[in-house]
């Protein structure tokens, strides 16, 4: 790229942020999420590798199901870890969703510090994807842990998914490269009255790798999967 063009792009990026022109090729490798709609929504074909992606939304909005489908997809290719702060992970549900349980490590930390240390160590050891299910209560000290965590994830090419039921802190919003907000829309029924699934609105609130603001409605089929 010529220097003058690069300078112009830098000026536009400074002025317009992520709305500025960007290269057509994905700037960052992506790991498929296991859900085609989410891959399309992120703009790069999946979750960014070596970065943090946040799945936000109220309880029952489908974000945990989407994250667990991503865990299932990643477990078929390598080692994955699930950091289960609320201790409510259902391995049977994961197995039904196609997760290879022999590739899955479940971390059940007693404190945020233990959990984040575990994530750092496992990321460094070569775990491909780590899904962190944060507690609903405000996580004190998370803002101090996140920079170390991201540094390690970037170094080890580990994909980090963060699930947060409550409104995310400023620190999480700042460090996340991708924020997907989920909102429950409505239950969908078949003509015979049987439940078909839950309709969910997913919005890209923040995206450092592709244009943000994209919305998509997706159906989480019931029973799952």
């Amino acid at each position, binding site marked *: 790229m010529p220097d003058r063009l690069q300078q112009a792009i830098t000026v536009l990026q400074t002025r317009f942020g992520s709305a500025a022109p960007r290269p057509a090729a994905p700037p960052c490798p992506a790991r498929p999420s296991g859900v085609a709609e989410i891959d399309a929504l992120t703009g790069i074909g999946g979750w960014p590798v070596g970065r943090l992606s946040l799945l936000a939304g109220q309880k029952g909005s489908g974000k945990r199901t989407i994250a667990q489908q991503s865990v299932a997809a990643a477990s078929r290719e390598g*080692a994955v870890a699930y950091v289960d702060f609320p201790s409510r*992970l*259902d*391995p*049977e549900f*994961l*197995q039904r969703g196609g997760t290879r*349980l*022999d590739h*899955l*490590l*479940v*971390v*059940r*930390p*007693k404190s945020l510090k*233990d959990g984040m*240390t*575990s994530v750092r*160590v*496992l990321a*460094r*050891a*070569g*775990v491909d994807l780590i899904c962190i299910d944060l507690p609903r209560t405000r996580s004190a000290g998370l803002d101090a842990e996140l920079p170390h965590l991201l540094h390690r994830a970037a*170094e*080890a090419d580990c994909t980090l998914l963060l699930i947060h039921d409550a409104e995310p802190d400023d620190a999480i919003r700042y460090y996340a490269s991708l924020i997907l907000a989920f909102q429950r829309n409505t239950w969908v029924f078949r003509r015979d009255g049987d439940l078909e699934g839950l309709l969910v609105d997913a919005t890209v609130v923040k995206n450092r790798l592709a244009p943000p603001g994209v919305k998509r409605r997706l159906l989480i089929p019931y029973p799952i999967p």
Partner: protein
Amino acid sequence: MICCVRTPHPSLVAAWLKAPTLRGRSLVIGGLAHERASVTTASAEARGQGVVEGMGLNQAQQFTPDAIFQPVDEEATARVRQFLLSTLHHFTPDVAAAEDPGCAFLKLDRLALRWPDRSALLAAISRAIDAVIRVTPTIGVASSIFVSKLAADHATVGVPVIVEPEKTCAYLSRYPIDVLPLDDDLREYLELLGLRTIGRLQTISRHAFRRQFGQKALDIYDLAHGNDRRRLRPFRPPVRIEASEPLEPPVDNTEALQFIARALAERVSASLLAQGLGTRVVRITLIQESAPPLPIEVRFAYPMTTAGELFDGIRPRLLRASIVAPLERITMRAGRLEAAYVRQPGLLIRRDGFKESIADAVARLQEEYGPSLVQRAEVQADAAPLADHRVLWKPA
């Protein structure tokens, strides 16, 4: 002179050490009878019934229906082999492992002063091995590896076969050519020419043999005359780096304990540095005055060498240790030794040159935060449909 010490296959010895009642019984090692695998080794009783190495386990079971089938315990087998070599290493550093796992060689040349009576030396070797692995070896002594191994193969327990150098040709001449490492073509040619014993082969001149069978076959010709050019590759015993300190009077405060631990870390570090090694596990044993010893294990993600690095890992574990009585002795041992130079590539490439395995990382986390931190889940499909029954959580 080279001495060949021959014991049964180490996996067989390991099985006997684990269960002495198996001695004298028909035992087949390689797997369970129904498995699709082959026989690694078998006891003399099973061999007597027709079982040979490499035979399928199903076939072996047909030969010996009453035999006990066991899988190979790799760890115990390696330990037996290590015991055998280490025991011989006490006699002389010129010890070598053979390709045959039950065999080891040692050079006797440097032992003439210490052991002027060779038969006493061979009896001492036999006794030492019997004391360690509970098996009396057969021993052959000759001027070369090949002849000594052949002598050991044909010796009986307690009666070593000694082949003096000048009698080597005469000793070999009685054996069939099958004892030589022949390929199929050469064996066929020799048999066509009516050369069925080494003695007949020795009657041919070297020049004529080379003209008939080529340059490569000369190695066989030399072996038939007892000339084996192979050299022993010396066995090096595992390095053990340990430092220990008696505490007199017994210590009952953590400040003093830390001070002593730091001094021991420096001693261990000096040994590591001297050998260019790093350790990934430090095992500390705290001997308490009126309570059982307290073992502490500290794992490191990378091979550590310096005292500072070692002590940084050790200190928090010492402070958390539940010491219930004054300490009489502290011992520190470096385990999982690796070459320290592996840290150097970090200067050149991304991530500091090497990676901790996931298993190591999980072990380190569990050691630090308890076994319940990292778990694996197993779903039992046939259990009752209750979460507690269907999902089995196990430490990873």
